[in-house]
């Protein structure tokens, strides 16, 4: 029970680690939607050069390891453009978000492309502008189709956030290894951290799946899956 009492002693530190991890994940996921959705629309609806540019962005951010991206932005790009004082947390959230956008844009793109052309034609025949048609007809459907795939970005993002350890963000893994070096209580601490990650992982997924059911439209989408 030694281990348990140590864990309790350090519980508030662990709590800040959890909060930081969740903060990283939520900001990055939000940033991913904010960038990924327009990128998806751009890849489907806009001109060739724009599609090309987005394609290169996606190729780059999906092709590089998260560790290399973090190093690149933290040591290279941010200081290079005079933003060396930006806290690691912000850089980490931005990098995770930029990378998430690359992955999410492909989920959204697939969803948009799965919607039949008739939807757009019907909307335009009612006098809607292209923009209105996308906003009121295409996107509400696409988002519902994309949601199951999108939910899976959460566990990916959560496990990736641990790599932010490498640039010194005091998220859960950093907190864990600091406690380990302070207490020499190695395995119990590591396993407790794994347990917390697993709980966050499946707990979060449960919430997301509940959300999916909430915005479900009867009969819709079953064909797409």
């Amino acid at each position, binding site marked *: 029970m030694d281990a348990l009492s140590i864990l309790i002693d350090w519980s508030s530190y662990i709590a800040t680690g959890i909060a930081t991890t969740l903060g990283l994940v939520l900001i990055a996921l939000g940033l991913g939607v904010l960038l990924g959705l327009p990128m998806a629309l751009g890849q489907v609806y806009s001109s060739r050069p724009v599609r090309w540019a987005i394609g290169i962005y996606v*190729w*780059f951010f999906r*092709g*590089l*390891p*998260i*560790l*290399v*991206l973090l*190093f*690149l932005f933290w*040591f*290279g*790009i941010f*200081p*290079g453009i005079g933003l060396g004082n930006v806290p690691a947390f912000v850089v980490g959230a931005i990098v995770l978000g930029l990378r998430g956008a690359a992955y999410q844009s492909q989920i959204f793109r697939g969803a948009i492309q*799965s919607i039949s052309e008739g939807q757009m034609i019907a909307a335009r025949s009612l006098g809607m502008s292209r923009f209105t048609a996308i906003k009121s007809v295409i996107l509400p459907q696409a988002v519902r189709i994309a949601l199951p795939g999108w939910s899976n970005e959460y*566990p990916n993002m*959560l*496990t*990736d*956030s*641990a*790599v932010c*350890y*490498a640039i010194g963000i005091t998220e859960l*893994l950093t907190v*864990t*290894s600091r406690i*380990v070096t302070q207490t*020499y209580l*190695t*395995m119990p601490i*590591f*396993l407790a*951290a*794994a347990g917390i*990650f*697993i709980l966050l*992982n*499946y707990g979060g997924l449960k919430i997301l799946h509940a959300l999916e059911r909430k915005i479900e439209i009867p009969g819709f989408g079953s064909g797409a899956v």
Partner: protein
Amino acid sequence: MDQFTFIFDILLPALMQGLVITLQLIVCSAPFGLVLGIGVAAGRQYGGPILSRICKMFVLLIKGTPLLLLLFILYFGLPSIGITLTAFTAAVIGFILCNGAYNSEYIRGALLSIKDGQMIAAQALGMTRAQAIRNVILPQALRRAIPGLSNEFIYLIKYSSLAYMITVVELSGAGKNVATKYFIYTETFMVVGIVYLVLVTITTVAVSILEKHVSVPGTSRSTSAAQM
């Protein structure tokens, strides 16, 4: 020193050494990751209630734990209970576990997509369940799992960089060392990134060749339909 000399005389030679380690990591992990994936998927699908539950639990635990934490447990944690691994071995074991868990999900999905009739027909010819799985079910399932498995292989290439966090100086680590020594960060990590992009792109091309090579009329069509 200009950029050109830096990249070609200093950076690239260092990265080459790192690349060799990265490739070693991948070559040591990928085959066992595939075997583990097949074993876990088969255990979940065809094992008894106990084995299938163990396999399911394994996947759940590994997928829920960040790979970096898993590497820490293997390299920094295990010595405290008397098991000391070299950093390289710890990394490879971590990659095998992680790769195997994710692979098993794709293989299981593919196993589920094989119709019952295939097993029934094989058994009707006198094959044991094991023979039927090996000769009839798996060859079909693995073909269908190729897109997913190749995705996981690409993840393995990228996540092999995490070995650096437990002191294996592979590609990313080699880059980091050079960058820190010469204070040249952006260029260094861009070049490192490009090497990864090349690896990933080569893999993508190789996989599409492989897929064409092993494709069977009729089955690949159902694969792409299932992927949608």
